[in-house]
């Protein structure tokens, strides 16, 4: 029985629409009071900027504001696609996301499988506690650690290189080193925490499968390949789809902290381009156009990912 039904007056003919609405308002007006702040917040802070996105098609001036600035059509998009810096940022975004996916995606799965095979619970718990920790540390601190560890004179990395007879390298000024350092540090930060999803999936595998495999004389290695991995495949696929949906979301906060003009050629992504063009230089309309381009591609990816996920799991992601 539906909760509202309880408050309907007892009668044999269904009440008129007006009476039902009045009744609902009298009983449940408080729900709308609860909902209102959230909806007002969404309109003020998220939907108003969407209206403001029109400056991507306008010659925006601070003085005239969003509505008053004159329309210029697709001019900013033409400028963007003639702009070498933007094209470079676009390419870097795709390359960095793709590399992060290739290296960053399998490691948490591997880690979850490895945790699952550990029999000593104390060891397992300690290891998990440690590898989850970096997720809760801010990117500024991670960047601070990276800058210190890779510093040319003081850093541990160069100390080790020199110990083995190599020359020291000023890593953070070298374009060819930026991506490995960036991707490596994000794996260091997130791999442990991302493994939780897969561990939860493994925990859901029926123990009877393992019991019967043991009776058949299977080794742990075989059980991992024949039982555990196939059982968590749907989770793996869903997580992969989510990752693809968020492909353009490279951790640009971290990039802003780590890159410098010397490494822009491999490090500059769309969001850092927007930050420099918009916030630092004040080309708000051009930067908004780059942002809109980014958002539309991301939107398409997310929608595609969601419909794919629906097909695989019969549940959508939200």
């Amino acid at each position, binding site marked *: 029985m539906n*909760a509202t039904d309880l408050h309907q007056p007892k009668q044999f003919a269904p009440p008129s629409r007006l009476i039902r609405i009045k009744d609902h308002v009298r009983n*449940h007006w408080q*729900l*709308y009071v*609860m909902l209102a*702040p*959230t*909806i007002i*917040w969404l309109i*003020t*802070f*998220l939907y108003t*900027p*969407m209206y*403001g*996105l029109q*400056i991507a098609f306008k010659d925006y001036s601070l003085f005239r504001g*969003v509505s008053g600035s004159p329309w210029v059509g697709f001019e900013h998009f033409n400028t963007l696609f003639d702009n070498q810096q933007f094209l470079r940022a676009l390419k870097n975004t795709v390359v960095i996301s793709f590399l992060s996916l290739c290296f960053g995606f399998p490691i948490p799965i591997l*880690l979850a499988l*490895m*945790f699952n*095979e*550990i*029999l000593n619970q104390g*060891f397992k718990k300690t*290891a998990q506690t*440690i*590898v989850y*920790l970096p997720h809760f540390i*801010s990117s*500024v*601190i991670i*960047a*601070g*650690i990276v*800058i*210190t*560890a890779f510093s040319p*004179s003081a*850093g*541990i990395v*160069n*100390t080790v290189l*020199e110990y083995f007879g190599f020359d020291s390298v000023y890593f953070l000024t070298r374009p060819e080193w930026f991506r490995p350092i960036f991707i490596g540090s994000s794996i*260091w930060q997130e791999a*442990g925490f991302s493994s*939780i999803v897969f561990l*939860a999936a493994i925990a859901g595998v029926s123990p009877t499968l393992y019991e019967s495999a*043991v009776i058949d004389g299977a*080794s742990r*290695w075989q059980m991992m390949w024949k039982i555990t991995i196939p059982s968590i495949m749907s989770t793996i696929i869903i997580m992969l789809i989510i990752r693809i949906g968020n492909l353009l979301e490279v951790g640009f906060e971290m990039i802003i902290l780590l890159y410098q003009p010397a490494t822009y050629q491999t490090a500059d992504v769309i969001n850092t381009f*927007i930050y420099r063009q*918009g*916030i630092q230089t004040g080309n708000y309309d051009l930067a*908004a156009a780059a942002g809109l381009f980014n*958002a539309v591609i991301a*939107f398409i990816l997310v929608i595609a990912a969601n419909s794919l996920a629906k097909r695989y799991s019969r*549940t959508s*992601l*939200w």
Partner: protein
Amino acid sequence: MANMNLYSRGDKTFVVINMFLVAIFTLSTLYPFIYITAVSFSSGFPAASGEVVWKPIDLTFAAFQRVLTDSEFWISYRNTFIYTIGGTLTSLAFIIPGAYALSRPHLFGKRFWNLMVAFTMWFNAGMIPFFLNMRDLGLLDSYFGIIIGFAVNGFNLILLRNFFEGIPSSFEEAARMDGANDFQVLWKVYMPLSKPAIATVALFCVVSRWNGFFWAMILLQDENKLPLQVYLRRTIVELTGDEEFVSSALTIPYSVETVTAAIIVCSIIPVLIFYPFIQKYFNKGILLGGVKE
């Protein structure tokens, strides 16, 4: 683990190798923290010439002394507490009632409101329109702007809504029979039943507030309002070119590296104190609510 007793002698190598690999991964996660702590307690010269590996060399508290006597450090520390506590309470004040309303089957326009929330997760106007909007609202350079501007988050809202939806409606019906209104149903019945979910959302808010730096860097100018993370970034950037360090590396007991490391240690400590509480909740798997059926 169910398969614990199923382990046979032939698997010994596999188990040992596996444990070894996990140990290596764990140590390599841990090592940067050990390294930074060792640097923070070392003297300036050995740290600047890369001699520190595992433990402090020429143990000194000079770097910490410098950090802890800097008034800007304490101001930024205080500000981070203001943003974290104020921001988390504000978020909960929006999200708990909002999620409850969105979870009620008889809410008028339920589909529309939910779509309105979900759409913000798929499509984002981006950095520039958000920034210009904050400026138009007069929320630049204010505590209030940072606290209110990031109060609601679609993911947290939906996480909590899903949790409320999972509570059998008989609870609401029973409370209604006793004459409770919607506020009372939420406050006296649903909130006590949802403590773990609310705690999870609160922890997400605390962590993102404590670590947030990008928008604070962009929206705040006044040095007295900066949070710890922005202070840390400025210190790292500014110290690197600072004359004081370059010219007198031998005469002062600290260096850029040791001071940076000391600030890092000081800002990790609260996270470490808070960490056991965080763990207690994410082990329950509630945070998977957004992904799992």
